[in-house]
């Protein structure tokens, strides 16, 4: 397969995803909508009682934003988009017509993942852009001292002393977390072929199981195998609130994340190659 064909196949996947207005609307709500709500509520709180509620913006608020955009609402957006990418050919019945072209089934599977990631990242980057505008726009004089000086100066990634490096690290970490969740969703979607089953399993995992299992102390180091715990280990700034203090090393976290990706991508690819069309 040539690069031109690969690019055109990814473009075709993107076209399919963008035209699914319901999916895009839900994913946009979980990314852009949530950020607008987040800063909107904070701005109203600050306006109503500035003595109790600090400024809505400020770089410190960005730490909360990357949590929202990675393992909370952003994860739901990645699940919705990744599931659609993984299941749309199967659920529409078009998979059979694609197989009949003679194109390798592995290629048909492989282009789903970049398309899902591109759509999720596009929405997330818009959301993060809005968030950064709010960070500075609603920062206030106390919360954002010398914003221009902070940007471009690498500082310790701790709340309150956040700088440009934290913003960059935070954005990269958020995008990385979404790529992981997209990979799992595309793989599981391609494995099950069912949108409903994939969404149920992944939302159940992300919202309930991940958090519940991380609370079970007798699981000990096994909890380091959880996606959110591994992601939390690599998160810049504050630790994730739902990892219950479990903090694997960076190396372990990277291996765990790579393993989750590899397993689901393998299962999705294998199912796509072997399934009757």
């Amino acid at each position, binding site marked *: 397969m*040539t690069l*031109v*064909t690969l690019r*055109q*196949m990814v*473009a*075709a996947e993107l*076209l*399919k995803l963008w*035209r*699914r*207005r319901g999916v895009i609307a839900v994913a946009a709500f979980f990314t852009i909508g949530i950020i607008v709500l987040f800063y909107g509520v904070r701005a109203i709180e600050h306006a109503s009682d500035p003595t109790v509620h600090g400024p809505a913006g400020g770089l410190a608020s960005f730490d909360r934003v990357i949590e929202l955009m990675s393992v909370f609402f952003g994860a739901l957006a990645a699940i919705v988009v990744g599931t659609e990418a993984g299941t*749309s050919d199967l659920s*529409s*019945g*078009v998979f*059979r*017509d*694609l*197989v*009949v*072209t*003679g*194109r*390798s089934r592995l290629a*048909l599977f492989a282009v789903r993942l970049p398309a899902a990631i591109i759509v999720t990242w596009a929405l997330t980057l818009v959301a993060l852009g809005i968030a950064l505008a709010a960070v500075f726009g609603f920062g206030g004089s106390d919360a954002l001292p010398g914003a221009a000086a902070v940007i471009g100066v690498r500082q310790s990634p701790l709340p309150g002393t956040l700088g440009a490096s934290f913003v960059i690290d935070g954005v990269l970490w958020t995008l990385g977390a979404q790529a992981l969740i997209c990979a799992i969703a595309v793989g599981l979607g391609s494995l099950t072929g069912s949108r409903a089953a994939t969404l149920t399993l992944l939302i159940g995992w992300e919202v309930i199981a991940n958090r519940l299992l991380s609370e079970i102390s007798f699981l000990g180091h096994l909890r380091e195998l959880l996606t959110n715990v591994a992601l939390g280990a690599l998160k810049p700034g504050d630790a994730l609130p739902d990892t219950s203090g479990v903090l694997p090393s960076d190396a372990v976290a990277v291996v765990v994340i790579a393993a989750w990706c590899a397993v689901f991508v393998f299962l999705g690819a294998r199912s796509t190659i072997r399934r*009757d*069309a």
Partner: protein
Amino acid sequence: MACDHIIETVDLTKRFGERVAVDHVTLRVPRGSAFGFLGHNGAGKTTTIRMLLGLTRSDGGTMALRGLPVPERRAEALARVGAIVEEPHFHGQLTGRENMRVLAAVRGPETFARIDGALARVGLAERADEKVARYSQGMRQRLGVARCLLSDPELLVLDEPTNGLDPAGILEFRQMIRSLVAEGRTVFLSSHLLDEVEKACDAAAIIDGGRIVASGPIAELTRSRHSELVIVCDAPERAVELLLGAPGVLAIERASSELLRLRLGGAAAASDLNRRLVLAGIGVSRLEPVHESLEQRFLEVTSRLEAVA
């Protein structure tokens, strides 16, 4: 690669558990023809097609498309094959043209240039920018054919392509099949509509219970093994007396007051019988050899199997 047969299977077999869906099917489809593949629902037509196209694995036998063995050289073989299996499916949220672009992207860059021509050929150029979700069944079938044409196919495999078409659409479809064959393409038409196959195809195979029970040119399949003749004349009773003694006449049936149906042996000639009647002063207003329809042939070969079973 040039090859006399664009589709060739030898002992092709597929099992679903204990059930043998396709049972040692040997099939040869000549190039440049319209070939019908007939069978009851569940006879094994679609399973055979699915194996040929790599949609499901076979459990035995060999297959070749365009002279290339499949699945070994499947990608190369399918590069110039267009197919609709059961019914064409589309992304409803996309327009007809966008659905074509999705498939063109998978086929390869050179196919994009064929999109407009293919849409025009099936009469969808004007409505190509409407969402497919709003298309009628007939429009979807036509879009499916347009999608097949993207590969500039040597072979089109069409599984029940006239489903959902009105009579005018069926006629258009038949004409399209003939025009595709006239261009040197091969059309493999799977159907349970016997009349459709008889009118559109040059040759056919009949599959029943997973086995090929008859195959050959349509004219051969519909040729009566017992030659029959229909005669309408003004003195049928005298005609019966006269013709019963004629050489080669095995039996005569009075189908109606004026119509006689004669069953002939090898030696009888219609012209000789006509001469006898006219010389006897009997006016003959109709004298016509009877051809067996494909439907009769189909029912005969398939019901014979049922009787054996």
